[in-house]
């Protein structure tokens, strides 16, 4: 009985530590090297203020992350939050499979009035990388 209570307490403690962030993209860039043009030509496009549900992210430090446009059961990857003391909280999320490599970095400053920002990059299968950056709110 005591052990069950201890387990429940541990589970609740773990659940309480999960943080959820809603992150909106305000700038994005796409860089690609076409396989047929490996001499180094690249493409870039800027989408300022291009925030939409596909570009925005929901990060749950206990579940991973997903695009805001995705079903809320489709969390991917894993996240690690690090308390850096006077430098605030740093959250790093990563997802790796043969088709995608994606990571998200969130920085939350210790002062409550400071904004929370994020940067993100996704290496797609093939030859391009898309990245985005913006601001987050904490649930």
């Amino acid at each position, binding site marked *: 009985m005591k052990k069950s209570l201890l387990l429940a307490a541990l589970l609740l403690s773990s659940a309480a530590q999960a943080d959820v962030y809603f992150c909106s993209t*305000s*700038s*994005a*860039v*796409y*860089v*690609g*090297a076409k*396989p047929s043009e*490996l*001499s*180094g*030509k*690249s493409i*870039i496009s*800027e989408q*300022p203020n291009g925030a939409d549900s596909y570009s925005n992210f929901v990060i749950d430090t206990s579940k991973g992350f997903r695009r805001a446009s995705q079903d809320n059961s489709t969390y991917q990857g894993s996240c690690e939050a690090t308390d850096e003391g006077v430098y605030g909280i740093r959250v*790093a999320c*990563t997802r*790796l499979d*043969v088709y995608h*490599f994606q*990571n*998200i*970095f969130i*920085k939350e400053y210790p002062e409550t009035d400071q*904004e929370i*920002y*994020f*940067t*993100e*990059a996704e*290496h797609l299968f093939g*030859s*391009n*990388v*898309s*990245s*985005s*950056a*913006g*601001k987050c709110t904490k649930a």
Partner: protein
Amino acid sequence: MKKTLLLATALACSGAAQAEIFSCTSTYGAAIDRDELVKAPIATQSWIVDTTRGLRVTQENRVVKDYAGDCEVLGRNVGLLAVCNAEDGIFTHTVKIQKRSNGEINFLASMLGVYSISHAGTCTEI
């Protein structure tokens, strides 16, 4: 005893033979932050990719971070596909390198921190 030594030597040599090392330099890069496109193109950035030791980050012939992090080889069906990660204290570097069956080697890299910086370029095997 001889057999053990031979086996150990063979295993060591086999491990060493699996290391693949590439020198990668960006030909194009762009940086954004939470508000806007900061700069494009940006200064050249280089990495030495060692599939067994991780990434060495260099900038303007100066080593910013010696071998750190790790690499994961995702495929060898047609050439090589590997992803390497390392942190230098400011940025998290991710380099995806692809060696094609025709010998061409290209890479894409991202650096995440205050900025999100993306690079594309080519590599040579060393």
